[in-house]
């Protein structure tokens, strides 16, 4: 009996040392005790896939096809506009070769749109352009040249609405394109909010 207790205690100490406690940090993949169907061989969002030769589960559209929701541009080829609905003004900010002014009929300006724009501006734009749009966001502390555009100055005020939309979509200078993360409606919402900021700014 004495031996039994001794052995159990020794083993216990060893096991406890190995097991540790709940919540301690570890880097290896968590073990799954009953792995039945936990990991299925199916296509999962943003996950690799062994099924495709390039190993990527996210697929690009097959050449010559257009995904649902993407319109075909005038020349018959696939539309170059990503995350949009087509070649019309609401999706491009352009009429022919020129920037259009005014808001597209699909996205009329109302309080809800401006409010949405305020929220999206805070999320996506304020880091660089500042909460008030003055071009002094938190990022200005980390890069020095060239300064971020001040959205309140007269140069930007004179931009047609379509140009601001186009700039959000494609970027400009050091600013990258935001067509992958901000939906078309939200881009127009941001344009409306930028206009509101400009109206309320002290000259």
């Amino acid at each position, binding site marked *: 009996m004495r031996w039994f207790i001794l052995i159990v205690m020794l083993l216990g100490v060893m*096991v406890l040392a190995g097991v540790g406690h709940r919540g301690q940090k570890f880097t290896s993949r968590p073990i799954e005790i009953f792995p039945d169907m936990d990991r*299925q061989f199916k296509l999962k969002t943003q996950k690799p896939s062994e099924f495709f030769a390039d190993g990527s589960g996210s697929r690009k559209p097959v050449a010559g096809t257009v995904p649902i929701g993407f319109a075909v541009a005038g020349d018959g080829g696939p539309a170059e506009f990503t995350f949009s609905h087509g070649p019309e003004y609401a999706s491009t900010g352009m009429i022919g070769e020129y920037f259009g002014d005014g808001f597209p009929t699909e996205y009329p300006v109302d309080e809800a749109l401006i409010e949405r724009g305020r929220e999206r501006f805070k999320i996506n734009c304020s880091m660089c352009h500042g909460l008030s749009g003055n071009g002094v966001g938190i990022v200005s502390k980390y890069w020095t040249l060239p300064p971020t555009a001040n959205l309140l100055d007269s140069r930007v005020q004179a931009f047609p609405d379509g140009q601001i939309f186009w700039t959000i979509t494609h970027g400009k200078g050091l600013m990258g394109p935001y067509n992958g993360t901000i939906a078309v409606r939200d881009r127009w919402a941001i344009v409306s909010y930028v206009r509101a900021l400009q109206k309320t700014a002290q000259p």
Partner: protein
Amino acid sequence: MANLFPRWTNELPLKAVVCVAALGGIVSGLVAYTATPKYTRVGYMPEQPIPFDHSLHAQQLGMDCRYCHSFVEQSSHSNLPADQVCWNCHGPGKVKPDSPKLQALREAMDESSEDYTGRPVAWVQIHETPDYAYFNHSAHVNRGVSCVECHGQVNEMKVVYHAKPLSMSFCLDCHRNSEKVLRPLDQITNLDWKAEDVDKDAFYAYLADKTGKGVEDLKKADSHKTFDRLLIGGHLKEAWNVHPPQDCTACHR
């Protein structure tokens, strides 16, 4: 006939029973402690291809979760950012473009670099439900459940780790008592939100607008209660008509 069994064997059956029971108890205790996501998943902190610091980006710089996890409100899947999103700030001529930590990003994005492969950064997924459990992010964040309820204080993590068990009972605890976790919709990505921060007047005005009751009536009914998380959550649950499903098909198809 001499004694076939010596005297000490008298206690042998009892000792055997005690030993087996003790061993059984120890083993079941060990299993109960370790064979649960509280042990197997909580604390999982894999090494990422880029040591992205959430506490720096989300806390110090004050970035919103949705700058990177941009479709969490539209999609069942809370997306990792496309490499372009990282590149918007860490591209050539911008913030720390030459940092060795960003090597994987340059391989994915910088076509002028000799290491360019065009392969996306292979982030390691930390929070992973089984493939037969379908969690919808948009349904939760659009109904007042903050990121922090399932992911913990990510805004304070230098390296992200699995903070909550995400077991089935963890899901059901909330689905049975959702008033414990609901908060105003504009505070979803504010992981430091506290009930004390809520502006009482604005909150009751919002409730009155949603429920059609009078502001004063609502305030009067609550006059003897403490204005805490549970009260806020309870009101929101009622105003939004939140009935979290508890049947199997809610999550399993």
